[in-house]
């Protein structure tokens, strides 16, 4: 037990791999891409198939790995994949099928800059793709945004819990900074993989042959040709998403109580913003940090309330301005809102954020 609380030093990507084994993941399917290849490499090194029985497969493409997820998740197993932006773009077909057929599974996106092949340097420019569904049809993926190696480890189990609770794909939206940086981490305790009997009990909808004669066949499909029935299926999905929005919003608010201004940032941008806030506070500006942890469902209400209390909001994200629209929408334009971001794999500097805040203050004082 004492050993399990051990503090280790490792990369975010490595923490994902260790956490997967420890939280009873049944299968990992992935294809190499920078900056996340350490996930598959670490799993290959740890050989969990000899200990927990977890399956690890290097697939022929991200198209294949996400469809392996669809197949494995459809049998009720805890399955995951990881990739980076161009690979996650290829996965959108499979993610839409999983959402349509209500198949749970966990996808990790360690984002890099784009568009296209782009750069291997970090970015947060897959925000739209992750939070708007990304593939075809009306659907949502539950999106968790870690800002530390510790959260990389913790969100694996949380991602699986949410995916199974709502029978929906869940995503950890990370980036090259969090994936590559080394930090202290306490790994979750080792939990056993569920037994077949436990899977049958937890996932009566799963398609794995068991109990067919008493329960009739189970079919995992997103297809329905009758539009009236298909509309009902869509309405069912929408009702489910509403439940997720009501129950699963997560965020962290630091120093917002006395704040005159707020910075809204997620993932690695929130870490840099934290540094900028130290400088701003030392210079006498009371700034708080609001960090969405779930990007979908988005913490609309909390941001709405925050906007009533502050003079202005600065949204910091490593893209050209994506989450800022969700913040504006939540704040209902009641205070000035500005966005600051860097592109192409360049990570913002805390001083640049301080400067952006000074500009926002001028707008607010006018």
């Amino acid at each position: 037990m004492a050993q399990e609380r051990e503090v280790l030093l490792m990369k975010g990507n490595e923490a994902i791999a260790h956490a997967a084994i420890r939280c009873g993941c049944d299968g990992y399917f992935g294809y190499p891409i920078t900056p996340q290849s350490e996930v598959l490499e670490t799993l290959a090194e740890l050989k969990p198939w000899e200990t927990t029985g977890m399956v690890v497969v290097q697939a022929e493409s991200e198209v294949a790995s996400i469809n392996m997820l669809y197949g494995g998740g459809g049998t009720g197993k805890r399955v995951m994949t990881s990739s980076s932006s161009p690979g996650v773009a290829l996965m959108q077909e499979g993610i839409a099928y999983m959402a349509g057929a209500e198949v749970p599974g966990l996808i990790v996106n360690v984002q890099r800059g784009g568009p296209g092949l782009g750069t291997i340097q970090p970015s947060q420019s897959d925000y739209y793709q992750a939070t708007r569904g990304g593939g075809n049809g009306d659907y949502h993926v539950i999106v968790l945004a870690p800002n530390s190696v510790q959260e990389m480890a913790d969100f694996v189990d949380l991602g699986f819990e949410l995916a199974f609770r709502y029978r929906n794909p869940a995503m950890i939206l990370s980036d090259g900074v969090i994936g590559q940086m080394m930090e202290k981490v306490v790994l979750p305790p080792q939990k056993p993989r569920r037994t077949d009997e436990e899977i049958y009990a937890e996932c009566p909808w799963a398609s794995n042959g068991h109990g067919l004669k008493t329960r009739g066949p189970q079919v995992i499909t997103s297809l329905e040709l009758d539009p009236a029935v298909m509309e009902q299926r869509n309405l069912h999905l929408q009702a489910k998403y509403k439940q997720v929005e009501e129950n699963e919003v997560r965020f962290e608010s630091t120093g917002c109580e006395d704040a005159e201004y707020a910075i809204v940032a997620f993932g690695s941008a929130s870490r840099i913003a934290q540094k900028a806030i130290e400088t701003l506070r030392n210079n006498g500006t009371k700034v708080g940090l609001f960090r969405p942890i779930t990007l979908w469902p988005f913490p609309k209400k909390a941001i709405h309330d925050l906007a009533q209390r502050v003079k202005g909001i600065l949204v910091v994200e490593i893209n050209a301005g994506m989450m800022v629209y969700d913040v504006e929408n939540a704040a209902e334009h009641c205070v000035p809102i500005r966005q600051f971001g860097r592109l192409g794999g360049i990570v913002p500097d805390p001083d640049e954020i301080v400067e952006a805040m000074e500009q926002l203050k001028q707008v607010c004082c006018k």
Partner: protein
Amino acid sequence: MLTREEIIQPQNLVAEKPALMNNVDMHYCPGCSHGVVHKLVAEVIAEMGLEEKTIGISPVGCAVFAYRYIDIDWQEAAHGRAPALATACKRLWPDRLVFTYQGDGDLACIGTAETIHALNRGENITIIFINNAIYGMTGGQMAPTTLLGMKTATCPYGRDPRLHGYPLKITEIAAQLEGTAYVTRQSVHSVAAIRKCKKAIRHAFENSMQGKGSNLVEVVSTCNSGWKMNPVKANEWMEEHMFDYYHVGDLKDTEVIR
């Protein structure tokens, strides 16, 4: 004259509906090969007693609704991706019978990568491959397997190798892969052929259960609607033209070689 009741006696039974075939109308065109192959798959699963241990993966193509007809657990894959789903199902449930059922567009065009790599990894699955040389479901467009000179909606003047390349013999490629245990090409146009095809499916399923490697059963088939022929003519045309290019028989059987 014998009465109906006198005729319908167990000792007079010649053939019966496979226990695993559901009592629903099929959407397949009369004369289509899909229905016959479904029946064989259903019979073999029941004969092997694997009803509660089978996961079928249906394709995108005319067989998309295979799950309505055979009374087992199914997953409906995206177009071409069935072997990827099957890979995960079998790896995660090694004691299950996992098979895919795919058309030529699904398997040999959009899903070529998934097909070749699942077979090459030696996944212990069976792929049932319905080669009707056309895209049946979408209304008869050219498939990778369409014969030279054959007319389809997207090659209305006949398949021309300078424009469209050559018909793909993916089963021959599969036979070259180290991961495959059994690769065969069958047909279901006659009673004798149907019997052989059923044996092939059984052999492939047994290999899958015994962990011998990947198995591919191609069935050279008719699509009388897509070919714009009546069922009888379609069978004749298949024997005359398809068998010339797609030779029927076993291409590889590691059992036999050993």
